[in-house]
């Protein structure tokens, strides 16, 4: 893992909602295989930032260089192609990221078919393999996500996103509404996949414990600004900014 180029370089990114700041002055590099956590409370701009980075929101200013090319200058078809091949997006609510009326196998197979897979047997085999990797029994391949528990739905969403071996994965509170025991299983799964596939991940979370376990680096956001940025354990154990100190000290100890 010694690639010399960042996968994603963000410079002076800003997004306004009228006169209100969504996020501003955001700059960072994300390297291959790296997991960047964005933490902050609701309304801090972390979801706006994730939206801008993933192309779901139009930024007002700045550069988002993906492998050297500014995604803000790309044509829409190019960006859409990117978001179903080299990029992936895991939503907090699996309903936003899954087709609830389509079987588990169809959900996983969709990205394959979207890039031209036309052999049913191969698609099914790959889908079965991926269900296994996210610990969903192959017998459930023809069941619809509605029949799955929340944790299974989230794992299915992950399989659906990773099946085309993306390079960059955006995650918005992926362990959000899940039970604690289910969260742990998902975190373990994500860590393994990130390591084995060499994924670069940008994960938005308000859960500092999740950030500590998944992220290599953290950006702390408040009022649309990045107020602290560093190695995850350093930011959490030796926070420099007043807000980060408050955030860290506010976490309930178990």
């Amino acid at each position, binding site marked *: *893992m010694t690639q010399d180029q960042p996968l994603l370089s963000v410079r002076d990114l800003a997004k306004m909602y009228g006169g209100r700041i969504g996020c501003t002055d955001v700059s960072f590099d994300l*390297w291959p295989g*790296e997991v960047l956590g964005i933490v902050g409370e609701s309304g801090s701009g972390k979801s706006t930032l994730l939206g801008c980075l993933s192309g779901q929101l139009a930024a007002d200013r700045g550069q988002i260089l993906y492998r050297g090319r500014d995604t803000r200058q790309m044509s829409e078809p190019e960006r859409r192609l990117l978001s179903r091949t080299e990029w992936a997006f895991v939503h907090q609510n699996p309903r936003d990221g899954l087709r609830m009326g389509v079987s588990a196998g169809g959900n996983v197979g969709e990205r394959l078919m979207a890039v031209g897979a036309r052999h049913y047997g191969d698609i099914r085999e790959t889908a079965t393999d991926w269900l296994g990797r996210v610990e969903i029994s192959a017998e459930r391949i023809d069941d619809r996500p509605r029949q799955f528990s929340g944790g299974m739905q989230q794992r299915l969403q992950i399989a659906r996103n990773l099946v085309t071996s993306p390079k960059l994965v955006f995650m918005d509170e992926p362990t959000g509404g899940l039970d604690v*025991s289910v969260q*742990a*299983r998902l*975190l*373990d799964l994500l*860590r393994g996949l990130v*390591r084995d596939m060499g994924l670069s991940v940008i994960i938005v979370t308000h859960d500092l414990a999740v950030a*500590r*376990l998944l992220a*290599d*680096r953290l950006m702390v956001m408040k009022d649309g600004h990045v107020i602290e940025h*560093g*190695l995850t*354990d*350093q930011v959490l*154990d*030796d926070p*420099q*900014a*007043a807000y980060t*100190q*408050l955030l860290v*000290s506010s976490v309930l100890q178990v």
Partner: protein
Amino acid sequence: MIRIENLSKSFTLHNQSGVVIPVMAGAHLAVQPGECVALTGQSGSGKSTLMRMIYGNYLAAGGSIMVGDVDVAKASPREIIRLRRETLGYVSQFLRVVPRVPTRTVVAEPLLALGIPSDQAHARAEHLLEQLNIPQRLWSLSPTTFSGGEQQRVNIARGFAHDYPALLLDEPTASLDAKNREVVLSLIEAAKARGAAIVGIFHDEAARDRVCDRTVDVTGFTPQRAA
């Protein structure tokens, strides 16, 4: 291998009216490959703080911390991550892992992160767990439910899985029985023998005398409290 010069550190407590607490000034330390140095001083004198700074867990206020050719005091997060993966190991007193991950994998993780094939990494992990007398029936369970002593040994196994050229040991023999203490000390001796530079905190004086080449009293690095 490890060279610390003029290192200083202070904490600013923004939420307690911005109090600045200087905790370290003018710290110096040099550790050669194959050498083990024990940090001494009273509780609260800054032993753990220094260890954490070497590991990049605490930010330095000034000075330099060279580990190999990386200055931890100035390195980017990415460089520190790489340093920790390849060069610098740390056995802390606390085990921090994702719940549910089997012990065997917890120990193998540092090797997996280096891209070592899973079967090889797990074989090495199992060997260490066996050496440290963790019963085989526990290997597939998460260490989060283990006793303090067992967790400590899992932590040590994890810290010794990869042959790091530099190692930080925080009370490695605390809460161990005689048999396991012996195993840990021999692991430290083996690491020294292969050329690892080691910095440790040992309250166990007999252990310290046996594995450490010299001691450094960190009290000397404590800034004079302004009256």
